[in-house]
């Protein structure tokens, strides 16, 4: 069978909203739907539309540890959105299409491994669920995720922070000036995965010019070095010059050329809240670029309101490129040094804020740096919030290729903490056996 160029899972979830006037509201993709249908894109021979199926709770539990369980924290809309992303992956992996774009909502890139609720409009991480699905069902190994949303993809970073097989690259508006306030150049991954988290914080006012300098001199060369089996694009569209929630100056052409350069196997919609003046054009641009069609005429009617890039912004961008080029060049050395310094265990302690529900979470992570395998991860989480109360859990994550010793040590560690009785829930996410167990 002749593979079509692009599989499109278009699922605007017209009956799902965080609230009627929230940026994530029912009509977010209404104007995009109008534009896609009016253009006649769904009638193009190179584009095949797919319908989402519903993800199963077990698909979610490959990634997430919900407190007390993920099922109680989500709605059917989340299962359909994740299922839509998985349908896009299936279409590519079965060879029915060359690449796919999941234009679905709700979004997911702020959802971390531990889930207490919704943060940054996200409850479950669609890309991460798809990556683990690809590994489980299709045996995919090395994965690169390029997050092109204006907000740092802190959820995706969290989930793959200890995974050397997953390269996570995020460019975004500098965290000093925008939610979620993370994604700086020193967040590089835990010792054994050092360098496979690569953040590119960009100054407000970055235009297509700056973005494409970053792509040409940093993102594309790093991808070429890493040689992923599959490239995923977390395709947020809020870098657009008309976005109401951020301050970047990217155009539909900038996004379309990005999609053309990146040649992602699967792209997944994230944010983008200029629903009337940006999304219709940006999405058409991305779809055309991914389908290998002419996108040169996709130009916003108000393009003359997009300013040029100030010289200071250009200089700042160039500095970040050089900094991260250097890091990437010596990542092996950095990894050896960090591993040696950490010894058997690496610890981190963080506060995580859930903006939607006003939940404050304190989380500690302990990674077993095993010389024989990818080790295991122990997580202690405590979350407070008015109206939310208090929830806590202690969990172990056993890696896919964990050695027998690490597998039993992880379970023993949770049993040991359970005896002390400090937490409400005790869980083991066993990737080796593909199951999530409550102890």
């Amino acid at each position, binding site marked *: 069978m002749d593979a079509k160029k692009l599989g499109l899972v*278009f*699922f*605007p*979830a*017209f*009956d*799902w909203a965080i609230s*009627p*006037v929230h940026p994530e*509201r*029912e*009509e977010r993709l*209404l*104007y995009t*739907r*109008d*534009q896609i*249908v*009016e*253009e*006649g*894109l*769904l*009638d*193009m021979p190179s584009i095949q*539309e*797919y*319908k*989402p*199926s*519903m993800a199963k709770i077990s698909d979610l539990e490959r990634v997430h540890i919900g407190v007390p369980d993920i099922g109680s924290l989500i*709605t*059917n*809309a989340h299962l*359909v959105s994740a*299922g839509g992303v998985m349908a896009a992956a299936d279409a590519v992996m079965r060879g029915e299409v060359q690449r796919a774009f999941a234009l679905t909502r709700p979004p997911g890139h702020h959802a971390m491994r531990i889930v207490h609720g919704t943060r940054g409009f996200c409850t479950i991480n669609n890309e991460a669920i798809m990556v683990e699905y690809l590994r489980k069902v299709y045996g995919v190994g090395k994965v690169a995720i390029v997050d092109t949303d204006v907000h740092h993809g802190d959820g995706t970073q969290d989930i793959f922070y200890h995974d050397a097989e997953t390269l996570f690259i995020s460019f975004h508006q500098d965290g000093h000036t925008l939610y979620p306030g993370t994604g700086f150049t020193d967040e590089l991954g835990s010792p054994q995965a050092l360098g496979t988290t690569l953040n590119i914080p960009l100054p407000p006012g970055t235009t297509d010019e700056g973005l494409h300098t970053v792509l040409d001199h940093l993102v594309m060369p790093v991808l070429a070095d890493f040689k992923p089996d599959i490239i995923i694009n977390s395709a947020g569209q809020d870098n657009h010059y008309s976005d109401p929630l951020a301050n970047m100056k990217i155009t539909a052409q900038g996004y379309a050329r990005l999609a053309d350069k990146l040649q992602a196997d699967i792209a997944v919609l994230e944010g983008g809240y200029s629903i*009337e003046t940006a999304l*219709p*054009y940006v999405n*058409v641009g991305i779809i*055309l670029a991914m389908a290998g*069609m*002419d996108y*040169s*005429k*996709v*130009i*916003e*009617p108000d393009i003359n309101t997009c300013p040029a890039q100030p010289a200071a912004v250009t200089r700042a961008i160039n500095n970040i490129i050089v900094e991260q080029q250097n890091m990437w060049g010596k990542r092996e050395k950095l990894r050896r040094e960090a591993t040696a310094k950490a010894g058997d265990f690496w610890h981190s302690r963080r506060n995580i804020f859930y903006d939607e529900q006003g939940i404050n979470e304190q989380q500690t992570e302990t990674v077993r740096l095993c010389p024989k395998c990818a080790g295991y991860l122990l997580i202690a989480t405590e979350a407070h919030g008015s109206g939310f109360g208090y929830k806590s859990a202690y969990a172990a994550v056993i890696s896919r290729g964990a050695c027998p010793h690490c597998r039993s040590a992880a379970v023993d560690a949770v049993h040991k903490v359970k005896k002390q009785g400090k937490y409400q829930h005790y869980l083991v996410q066993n990737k080796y056996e593909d199951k999530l167990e409550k102890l």
Partner: protein
Amino acid sequence: MLLGLDVGGTFTDGAVVVDGKVVSVVKTPTTHGDLLTGILTAIDQVVADVGSTHFTRIALSTTVVTNALIKGDIDQVGLCIMPGPGMNIKAALPVEPYVLSGYIDHRGHNLATPRQDEVVAACRQFKKCNVFAISGKFSVRNPCNELAVTQWVQQQAHPDHITIGSGVAGTLNFLRRTNSAYYNAAVWRHFNVFATAVTAALKARGIGAPVYILKADGGTLPLLMAREYPVEAIFTGPAASVLGIMAMNPTMAPSLSLDIGGTTTDLALWQNGVPLFAEGGASVGGFATSLRAFRLSSIGLGGDSLVQRVEGVLKVGPKRLGPAMAVGGPSPTVTDAMIVAERIAFGDAKLAMKAMEQVAIDGQTPREVADMVLDAAVTIISQAIDDMLAQQANKPVYRVADIVHGTQFTVKHVIGVGGSAVGLVPLLAGHLGVTYDLPKQGMVANAIGAAVARPTVDITLRADTVEGYYTVAELGIKNKLQTHKFTLTDAYALGIKHLTELATSRGIPLGVTEIIQSEEFNVVQGFRTVGKIMTCRLQIKPGVLMNHEEAL
């Protein structure tokens, strides 16, 4: 007294229906090259049979447009488009368009007006064209640019006809509307010559009944309207037989209809007594159009399908070398198998037996082979049904509730018409484990369908309470909303009013109106809901005229 005529590839069929009963049926050969001769022969035979020329109406399902397209007997069209920003549409159009400035956005804002000097240049380039098509992106949200260009073209080029995109369909899809407008203009002259000849010939016979043309969606259009929208007369053959099935055998159960002819079988799925429509519209010459049509699946299997052994394996269809051996054909066919399996009595049974002997191996009896052939035929049809159901199940939906509570289409009933239905449909129904019907007069279902097809029309009303106006693309109107508290209920009422206007202007009785699509969204500015956008499509319910009081 309703007269229906269907011009098919082989036969021109006529049927007269009175009070829901078929009172006359005729079959005459189709006169290719001059379809009218065959049509008039059929009419004359019907008149002789019923002894009257006082028809309530005459409805015609004709291949005149289809044939014109196949033969390339179409006019050169001056195609002017206003695509604005977006996809480069040129490659997806049948001819090279002239691209004009002018852009309406998705909210119906006029962001760039067309330029008269460009229109003048376009007319110069198209100076040989007597027909024009003008189409702009989002013109259904605001037709002002299409109308302005139309006026300039009229002044500059004085063409015989101009088709505008927002006139051919009120729904979104610039590409499909543009293709529809192009084909409409391309066949306009050809159809009008035909329509004039039909009118004259009927007048000469003293037949004063109004003439309607069947559309691909099973509705009918008064001839006067069809003269403006001739492209609607394409693909009416299958629509006619599907409607005939509806007329002869109304059923509300999820059903499958099969029209099994000599070479092909047309399948349609039915829900709540109406056939399912093709997504987006029909495809014409490989180009997507906005023409509403039934979703039909056509497979290469019929009574005359060749039965042969290919490397020892029994193969049925899709080739046809001629009629069944039982009636003097050259090679074994499905019909021969049906005769030997005692499913039908037809032609010379001995010759049919001989046909089955030709494809028998390993001491098989002719009866055994015949059963195998019919099994194979049923398998081919079942596969086509599975494909249709899979396609139906994969139809995209845009709401969570539709995914969670979506129901699957399950065939509960089979209706078969066409020459070979009687031999295959009982077997197929048995295979599917469902009930079946073989309506009488199924052989002329197409003509009966044409006779009883109800005239229909549809409109799309879109109201934007923030902008304070509403549009009805099919009527080319953009009016102020009287109130800011306009609701979806108000939209329905307004829609019915305009649908009535449109129907009246086209000479169509109102019948039953229905809402076929409706949606309502908030418009939020700065975290405040400032208004609503609502869209609804209304139509005069398609269907069949079976009771006398309903007739025109």
